[in-house]
């Protein structure tokens, strides 16, 4: 049980890395959508 913080840290770190990457994809997609709107005008 003493080792549980390490287990929690490893699982949390995994999802923090994946979610951070997903956020960068979503932000880049939003920026491109704005660029497309700008090009259409």
């Amino acid at each position, binding site marked *: 049980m003493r080792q549980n913080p390490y287990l929690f840290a490893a699982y949390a*770190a995994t999802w923090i890395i994946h979610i951070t990457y997903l956020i960068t994809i979503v932000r880049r997609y939003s920026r491109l959508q704005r660029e497309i709107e700008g*090009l259409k005008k």
Partner: protein
Amino acid sequence: MKKVFPILVVLTGILLSYALYQALVVAPTEQTMGNVQRIFYYHVPSAWTAFILFFVNFGASIAYLIKRRPTADIIALVSAEVGVVFCTVVLVTGPIWARPVWGIWWTWDMRLTSTLVLWLIYVSYLFLRRFSSSGETPLLAAALAVLGALCVPFVYFSIWFFRTQHPQPVMGGGGSIDPRMMHALLINWLAFSCFAFLVCWSRYRLEKLQREVDHAHAMKSLLEPHGSAR
């Protein structure tokens, strides 16, 4: 295809939740390491997924070198980027597991060092893609990807060829594993592979859109009258 994607997202979410349940509840507690051994169910599938993505990158790079199709180039870029993300997970979860078990965060043994070198090669690949504006960039990147892929078998088999602190591989290592542990491991691998596929799909669409926007900008600048032409 747009209707299929949300369905796959939901299915992958369910699979990841089931895999987490398998890892934390169903799989038995390992006798010597205790609960910290459950890091194994995220660490090992992440490594396998990263290796598969690097091999996809290798195949797509070879295809690009032969046929010079932009689709192959996009697949190579996307698989390398998502592979680096999974390899980062491996390099982060490994030391977190090593600290309570070995008493140290890191040791410069062959498996750990070769994994770090592999990660650095693919990070270099992504830097090359990101910051080089030369028309030859995809070609240079494809050549670097071939070099990177050669390191993948070296990383995997390094624990056979060298004396290392890292445990032997789960498959082909000669040891035995509880069937419930193996089940949890394979379910987690399946879940992370599905997740990686969806991330690659999203990133592929983003890259295609990026290239379309770049093309539209280039066309616009060509068609616009320049101020210097008097």
